[in-house]
């Protein structure tokens, strides 16, 4: 009798642990080596270009909402997201401002004067570079790995970000240590997953890509 209760509790725990963790990933005991590798890679990535597919999961919908586009990053802080589906929308982050081209309508925001935008800017650049894990002021970080990927789980510490996001998961391919996908999980468990496809490292990018006229 006692034995069966013990077994049931044991199984419940195992299920709980598997649910809490991303499938196929186990914690990394010593993350120093991984952190060093990623830091070296970040320092060596002068540009990144990629296509992306974004899936938005809302609990009340049976199907995810899909958006697609292209993104470009130039070290240290130039970032361009171009959505081509379901409609044209370009957002460019640079050192001082955020520029938006919304189906032809161009607007700009000063990141210095807008805390929310500056947070988004830091997060986006940090996520793409994978360097967000160094930001111990803003995030608690846990490290996991599977056969093919590393997983960094970031839990926001700041109240503003905490009210919107519960966890940011960054999946990194072991083959080239590049970010394969990011998953932003909201407090409600709804999430956004962005998959990066056709990644190109250190190919030249025209600087005008980071200007909008």
């Amino acid at each position, binding site marked *: 009798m006692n034995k069966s209760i013990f077994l049931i509790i044991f199984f419940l725990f195992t299920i709980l642990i598997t649910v809490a963790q991303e499938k196929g990933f186990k914690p990394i005991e010593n993350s120093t080596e991984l952190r060093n590798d990623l830091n070296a890679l970040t320092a060596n990535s002068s540009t990144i270009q990629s296509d992306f597919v*974004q899936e*938005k999961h809302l609990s*009340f919908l049976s199907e995810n*909402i899909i*958006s697609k586009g292209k993104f470009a990053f130039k070290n240290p802080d130039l970032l361009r997201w171009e959505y081509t589906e379901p409609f044209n929308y370009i957002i460019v982050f640079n050192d001082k401002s955020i520029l938006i081209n*919304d189906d032809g309508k161009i607007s700009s925001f000063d990141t210095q004067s807008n805390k929310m935008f500056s947070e988004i800017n830091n997060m986006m650049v940090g996520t793409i570079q994978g360097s967000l894990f160094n930001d111990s002021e803003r995030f608690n970080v846990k490290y996991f790995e599977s056969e093919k990927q590393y997983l960094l789980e970031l839990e926001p510490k700041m109240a503003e970000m905490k009210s919107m996001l519960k966890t940011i998961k960054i999946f990194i391919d072991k083959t080239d240590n590049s970010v394969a996908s990011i998953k932003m999980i*909201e407090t409600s468990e*709804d999430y*956004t997953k962005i998959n990066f496809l056709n990644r190109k490292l250190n190919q030249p990018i025209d600087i005008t890509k980071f200007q909008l006229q």
Partner: protein
Amino acid sequence: MIYYAFHNPKIKNRYSLRILVLIILLFIAGCSNPYKKLTKVENPEKDTRIIPYSLPLSDKTIIYKADITFYKNNFGGLLVIKKIEEKKFRIALTTQFGLKIFDFELNHGKLNVVFCIDQLNKELIIKTFEEDFNLLLLQQDFEKIFKLKNTELNQRIWQLNSGKTSTYYIQNNESTSIDYISKRKRNSEKISVGLRNYKNDLPGEINLQHHNIKLKMNLKLIQ
């Protein structure tokens, strides 16, 4: 001249009177209700399904590209509308990056907040969204429903009455669905909604505008 006029009591009074008359005339003109003179017939059943408006009837996931201007603030993204069951909807707005701005449940005309960013989670703003989505999804409570006809403009009109508020759903004769919604309180227009370019029974473009506060919502159909 102006100085003289305002310091001569006779002229001053005459001027003030004229200005007052002008203001009253403007006020009356501004408040005149274009639907008041039309003959109306009350529908015996309190049923909104007599209105040819299919947006609230669709079971599909409806997605609009949203552009909302509230005073000097502008925000937008994807507005998702999903009918869960009869008289129960979920309405969520997410940014391009997918982050949710709000997630509401509209249940029998009552708006419940599932999630809302702090900047918008204020009673007055939530009440405004409740009013807007009730108008768009034809969920507001009413006491009487009337059918009107404007032969001059070739319009068929349905009027919902609730206390001092009247809401008009207007269909131009060449159209197969509702082209304009107008919510009026004590004869002045409070909210107006233009609906255009219908695709598969859903309005391709929706322009909602408040007339007493600076709030505009422009929606473009994606799916």
